[in-house]
């Protein structure tokens, strides 16, 4: 293979490389990766220069071919050998052109698919961004509401804390007052109990006094009886004195002295009677007074006993009051402790709520930032979608018709030159297929089939030459198969075919089956030899 041929073979790769580097530069620009964009641009430039060099070589070859053909047309056949060389050159250019077409087709197809994929993904991203934006908006609203609610809650909590502090202060004051009341009630209960004790003592003494008075009354009655007895003695003494006076009268002078004594006895008797009467009067007065005193003492005793009963109840009540006030103090102290706990809890809640409020505000700000970012992302994805749509739209017109018999790696025989020629044959089948589908109205079926036959002969010759060079087995059989194909194709052309859609369909079916079987089957034999030789092994296994 000469140098020019190798350069022309490099042309499709250069084109592919150019498209790839340009795509890289575009991608870098789209993603904002400056280094990537510059690298892609520099690569594109280098590849473009290389493509120009190779393209120039191809153009010169074509110009030489054109000049040679012009000379031959003018009857100058001196360039005939050069013309044969040119035919080979032109055929190799055809191979390169087909390869370029394939590469471009693949690249355009990949670009279009990529654009479609980017468009699809960017739409999905836009939908996702919209969903995220919607969610972010809801989050922002929620966080704003949360922040507002927390502020409201904080204000309420502050109000509650102030009131709780007031209540706690009132509870402290009430508990202090209750404690003083409890002390006082305890002292009062002792005072009341002492009064009860005192009253019990007074009642006892009153009972004793009444008993003494009763004894005095009885003693007075005894004295009155004694005074009565004294008066009786005085009466009998007076009577005795009267009798003595009578007897003294009777006795005359002798009895005069006795009469004086009798008179004195009489006077004494009268004095005794008077004294006894006065004693009776005095004792009677004392007795009456004593009786009255006893009555009054009885009343007083009754009153004292009623008072004792009442004070008994007072003692019980004061004990109850003391007990209840103690209970009240305990409850108030418990309440006070509860309010202090509430105040502490409120203080802690207030502090915690402050932190929550700060976090809520931060959350709100983050939600707003996220929403802005997502909106920006949505815009970017929309832009990306437009770019992708534009890319897809731009490449749509660049797409070649889908291959009738697409090249696949399993068709490769491992010899680049033969693979290239097989690709040309397959593309010629594409042209036949387009004829069948009415997609190439300006082309003549005879001419396309003639081109196919011409290129098949050229390829078979190259293949047979390669097999001979490789000393591949079954060369004769291979030649016979080639000849059969050419003959069959010639028969087809000579059979007066009308080139109807059905005729072309039958031809296509034959060509597809033959080429597929031949490349995948018969050509494998020299491919294996070629592979063994490349591996340094012998031509035969």
């Amino acid at each position, binding site marked *: 293979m000469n140098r020019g041929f190798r350069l022309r073979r490099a042309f499709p790769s250069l084109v592919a490389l150019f498209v790839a580097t340009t795509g890289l530069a575009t991608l870098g620009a789209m993603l904002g990766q400056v280094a990537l964009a510059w690298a892609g641009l520099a690569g594109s430039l280098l590849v473009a220069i290389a493509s120009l060099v190779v393209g120039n070589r191809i153009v010169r070859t074509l110009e030489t071919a054109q000049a040679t053909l012009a000379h031959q047309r003018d009857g100058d056949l001196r360039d005939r050998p050069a013309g044969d060389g040119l035919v080979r050159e032109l055929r190799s250019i055809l191979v390169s052109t087909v390869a370029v077409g394939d590469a471009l087709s693949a690249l355009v197809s990949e670009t279009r698919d990529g654009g479609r994929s980017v468009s699809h993904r960017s739409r999905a991203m836009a939908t996702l961004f919209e969903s995220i934006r919607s969610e972010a908006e809801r989050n922002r609203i929620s966080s704003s509401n949360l922040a507002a609610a927390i502020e409201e809650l904080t204000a309420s909590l502050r109000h509650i804390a102030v009131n709780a502090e007031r209540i706690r202060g009132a509870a402290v004051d009430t508990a202090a007052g209750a*404690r003083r009341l*409890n*002390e006082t009630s*305890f*002292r009062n*209960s*002792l005072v*009341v*109990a*002492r009064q*009860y*004790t005192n009253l019990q003592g007074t009642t006892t003494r009153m009972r004793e006094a009444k008993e003494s008075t009763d004894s005095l009354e009885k003693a007075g009655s005894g004295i009155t009886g004694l005074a009565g007895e004294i008066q009786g003695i005085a009466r009998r003494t007076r009577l005795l004195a009267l009798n003595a006076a009578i007897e003294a009268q009777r006795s005359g002078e002798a009895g005069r002295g006795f009469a004086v004594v009798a008179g004195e006895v009489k006077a004494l008797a009268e004095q005794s009677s008077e004294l006894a009467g006065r004693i009776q009067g005095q004792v009677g007065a004392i007795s009456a007074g004593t009786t009255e005193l006893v009555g009054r003492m009885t009343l007083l005793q009754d009153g004292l006993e009623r008072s004792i009963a009442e004070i*008994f*109840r007072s*003692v*019980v009540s*004061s*004990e*109850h009051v*003391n*007990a*209840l*006030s*103690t*209970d009240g103090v305990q409850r108030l102290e418990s309440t006070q402790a509860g309010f202090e706990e509430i105040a502490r809890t409120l203080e802690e809640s207030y502090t915690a709520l402050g932190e929550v409020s700060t976090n809520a505000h931060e959350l709100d700000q983050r939600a707003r930032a996220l929403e802005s970012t997502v909106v920006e992302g949505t815009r970017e994805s929309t832009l990306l979608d437009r770019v992708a749509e534009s890319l897809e739209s731009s490449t749509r017109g660049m797409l070649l018709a889908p291959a009738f018999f697409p090249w696949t790696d399993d068709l490769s025989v491992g010899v680049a030159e033969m693979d290239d020629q097989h690709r040309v044959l397959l593309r010629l089948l594409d042209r036949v297929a387009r004829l069948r589908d009415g997609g190439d109205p300006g082309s003549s079926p005879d001419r396309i089939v003639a081109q196919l036959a011409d290129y098949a002969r050229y390829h078979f010759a190259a293949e047979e030459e390669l097999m001979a060079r490789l000393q591949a087995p079954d060369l004769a059989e291979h030649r016979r198969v080639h000849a059969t194909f050419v003959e069959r194709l010639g028969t087809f052309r000579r059979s007066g075919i009308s080139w109807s859609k059905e005729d072309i369909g039958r031809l296509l079916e034959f060509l597809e089956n033959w080429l597929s079987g031949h490349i995948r089957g018969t050509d494998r034999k020299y491919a294996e030899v070629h592979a063994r030789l490349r591996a340094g092994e012998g031509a035969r296994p």
Partner: protein
Amino acid sequence: MSADPVQQIDQATVAHALWKVRLLDASTGDGSVLDRSTAGDCHACNFGKWLDSGADGLSGTTEFPEVFSLHEAFHGAVGTFIDRMRRERIDLDTDLGGGSIRDRSSQLALRLLRWRDRLAGTE
């Protein structure tokens, strides 16, 4: 004591109150005799004797053991306080402002009141 259970409780309450007066008088040196062993003995006072006698048939009530324990604790506090009085030369009145005797006495009186209310049907 009376057969009326409420009246019994009231009399027990008054007996306890009177005993406190005796304790106060003893601490202020009015000549009342209240030695440590008697004052600290929950079985020596009228209330204690009433409880020991079965509280006139009230010993089966749920409050009885609680009242018994509170009364025992009260006399325990009194005994401790008498020791302290002798040691520190203080009188009972200084302990009224939150002392253990007052607290125990109040607890006992409160329990008696609850007992009385339940027996009277006013709880």
